[in-house]
């Protein structure tokens, strides 16, 4: 069963009651919330995701709730609870769905040590994956959204999971988080894409989520072999340009962007060395999505 199969009232009932057991790639999240913003966001963004049995195992137990104080009437807020604890400060209530997304990211990056978790977007074509590590603002989510709207499969927008045994990328297809100018850029680039309502004045500015493509969600169990490591950088007006990046420097970038590289010790080192050895590595500057996608399509054609 997928989320879209659940009648609206049943989805709301599960969220408000025992919890919705939502599978996202290799993990199951038990989500509880009475907030309409959560029900609406889950219904829109996770429509294609599998719903696990109500009594089944869940990796993460999260809840989004309004604090029970007078403030809820004047300046409503939302808390993210993980196993009943509050790892973060509350946010304005209109940011509830964004907080769920950030919270689920945190669940994975802080706990999924069965993988090497890299702060990187990743997309796939013909079984080969591009890893796009980048600092906030580098344009990786925009590039990722552009690529998946032109036929690349979404593996992950934010957290790329590397299998410790094989070095393969384990998909975690979830909504793509677009910020500020990227929201309209993707609207213009792909008018048919499904975007949630933007929320403004978050710590990241304005944020809107793009629904992951149905095909990417359905193929969430298909891993991909890393073939390219590309450090993107958006620069308005710049021509799309790939510049070779040495493997040693690419290694250091990946290590710097990995949440749990240190947790894995030598195993993490060997895994990154394996991934880098098998990948062509580049720095990539771009100013227009169409040009950027053409460069990536060329990479795939010549693989």
């Amino acid at each position: 069963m997928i989320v879209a199969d659940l009648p609206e009232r049943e989805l709301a009932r599960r969220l408000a009651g025992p919890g919705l057991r939502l599978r996202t790639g290799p993990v199951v999240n038990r989500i509880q919330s009475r907030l309409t913003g959560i029900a609406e966001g889950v219904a829109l963004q996770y429509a294609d995701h599998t719903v696990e049995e109500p009594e089944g195992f869940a990796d993460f137990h999260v809840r989004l709730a309004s604090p029970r104080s007078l403030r809820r009437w004047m300046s409503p807020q939302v808390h993210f609870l993980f196993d009943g604890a509050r790892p973060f400060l509350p946010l304005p209530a209109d940011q509830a769905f964004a907080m769920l997304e950030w919270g689920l990211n945190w669940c994975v990056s802080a706990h999924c040590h069965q993988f090497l978790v890299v702060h990187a977007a990743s997309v796939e074509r013909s079984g080969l994956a591009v890893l796009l590590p980048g600092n906030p603002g580098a344009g990786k989510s925009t590039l990722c959204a552009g690529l998946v709207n032109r036929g690349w499969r979404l593996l992950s927008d934010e957290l790329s999971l590397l299998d410790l045994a094989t070095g393969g990328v384990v998909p975690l297809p979830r909504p793509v988080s677009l910020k500020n100018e990227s929201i309209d850029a993707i609207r213009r680039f792909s008018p048919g894409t499904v975007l949630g309502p933007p929320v403004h004045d978050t710590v990241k500015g304005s944020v809107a989520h793009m629904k992951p493509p149905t095909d990417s969600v359905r193929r969430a169990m298909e891993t991909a072999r890393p073939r390219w490591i590309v450090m993107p950088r958006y620069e308005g007006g710049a021509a799309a340009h790939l510049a070779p990046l040495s493997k040693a420097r690419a290694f250091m970038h990946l290590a710097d962007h990995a949440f749990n590289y240190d947790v894995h010790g030598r195993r993490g080192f060997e895994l990154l060395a394996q991934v880098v050895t098998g990948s062509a590595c580049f720095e990539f500057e771009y100013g227009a999505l169409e040009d950027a996608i053409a460069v990536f399509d060329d990479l795939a054609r010549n693989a």
Partner: protein
Amino acid sequence: MSLSSAPHWRSVSVDAIAWREWNGEFVVRNERSGSTHLLGPLAGDVLRALLDAGQGLSVADIAACLDDGPKAASDSTLLAAIEEVLSEFKRLGLAEPEAQ
């Protein structure tokens, strides 16, 4: 050959180091510190010379390992660069001078 009074340098044990080389650049993980470092060609070759030797080497010994030419051990520019690399290795815990 090196003067016996010159300090001899020894790397941490081979077991404590994981490293890879791609086109003359190296990444090195030091198991003792848990840190990973990016090394340029000279630093990588110095580390490799120390690891291969398995014993203490003077700066002149290292220079001779890097370049088989007879003049390497007296090339002051090379020797100074190796000294600099060794100082950095000491700071990073990758190598240290042996007690005299």
